[in-house]
């Protein structure tokens, strides 16, 4: 039961990430309507913004993959660890948010 709850939480976190990435891609696709003839300053900025976001997202993914496994283990042993576990799982989200903010500034 406790493991199932933890899996549901992990799935919700992943879904949140997917939504975030989806929104970002949509925004950039609208902005990056580059004129025919090559890279422009606006285009390069968009690539930079994408990389900033990508770095944050990869960092979050790497950290969360390990943290979620550990939290699942902790919750399987002691259900009272769930609250702290959720905090730990959510903590790496700060990385992707920072990446998002940086991408926004670059735009």
């Amino acid at each position, binding site marked *: 039961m406790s493991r199932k709850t933890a899996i549901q939480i992990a799935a919700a976190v992943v879904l949140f990430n997917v939504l975030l990435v989806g929104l970002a891609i949509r925004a950039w696709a609208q902005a990056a309507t580059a004129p025919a003839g090559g890279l422009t300053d606006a285009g390069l900025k968009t690539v930079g913004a994408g990389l900033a976001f990508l770095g944050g997202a990869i960092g979050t993914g790497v950290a969360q993959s390990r943290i979620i*496994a550990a939290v*699942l283990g902790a919750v*399987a042993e002691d259900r009272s660890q769930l609250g702290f576990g959720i905090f730990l799982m959510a903590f790496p989200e700060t990385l992707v948010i920072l990446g998002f903010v940086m991408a926004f500034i670059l735009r």
Partner: protein
Amino acid sequence: MSYEYLNTRLHFMIVKLLKPAQYEQFLELRDLGDLISALAETDYGPDLERHAVEHAEYPLVEAALMHNVQRHFNKLWSMAFADARPLVRILLERFEVFNLKTILRGFHAGTDPAETARGLFPTILYPTSFYQELLKRDGIGGVIDYLLTVGNRYYKPLAESYPSYEANHKLAVLESAVDSYYFAGSRRVLQAVGDENAVAVRRTLGTEVDLLNLVYALRVVEEGVESEERYRYILDGGERLSRAFIEELIGSPDKASFFRKLDGTEYASRAGGFEDTLGVGEFQERLENYLYQEMCRYDPGRTFDIHMASVYVWRKYVEMTDLRVIASGLWRRVPREEIERKMIWVKGVTPERAVAA
């Protein structure tokens, strides 16, 4: 990697192991009934409750201890998946080898099978009924036949060395065959895994090989064996001592020379040096004590590798052995000093005071 999940759960399991203060409390108890009541308040409570209808007094404690260890080892086994599983298997198989050797030793010495059964350690890779069946055999030959019947892989080394055992009646022949087979098989698996965790397990096994070789070498020197046969039972795969060094030790003319050669090694310095008059029994005890200290020592810097599983398995072994000694001592009303003398003392696991004693 699977170690985040496994090690977080193991951390909780390590926390649930008995604390030094609890050992202290158990040693101060006056009889077995008090110990059963005290154990009922620990992680052993459900196991005692489960067997309380069937057993009483010492057999109850024994059944509860066996069940508890098997329950936890089964849990460890089910938690260890992917890369961790073959390594955990190697760690747990050590106890199957220990049990096989105990049974062989029992038949060799003509010990009552019930007495031999009391020396067996709870295991999960082979069922308890397997050992019960082995103990029903009429001798070592019967044990080997039974291993063949059930398709147990230890049939092979034992069948190969049995003619030699029959000729000279030396138990070392069979023990060495079982050990060699286990260590060689484990090394093959570790080589196939090939990561840093496999290296850590190989080091653990290598240390055990070194200690087994040292005890064997001193026994050869003490008994004054001269034939070339003495070099045959050296185990390969030592961590710090090469085969050539062990051969050199075996070639020592006397114990003084043996210990002089051993002086420069890490084992001598970590065990606090060895006196020339030391007998094999005392020497083995000191080396085993060194092994327990090494294997039970938890390195907090190694949170995400096989180290924690290894530490857990060894600490559980120490806990089970010590509880057996205390329960059996209280049951037979043995003086506390005697119980303490037979216990395994590990720094950080058992009371500090006794480690120095």
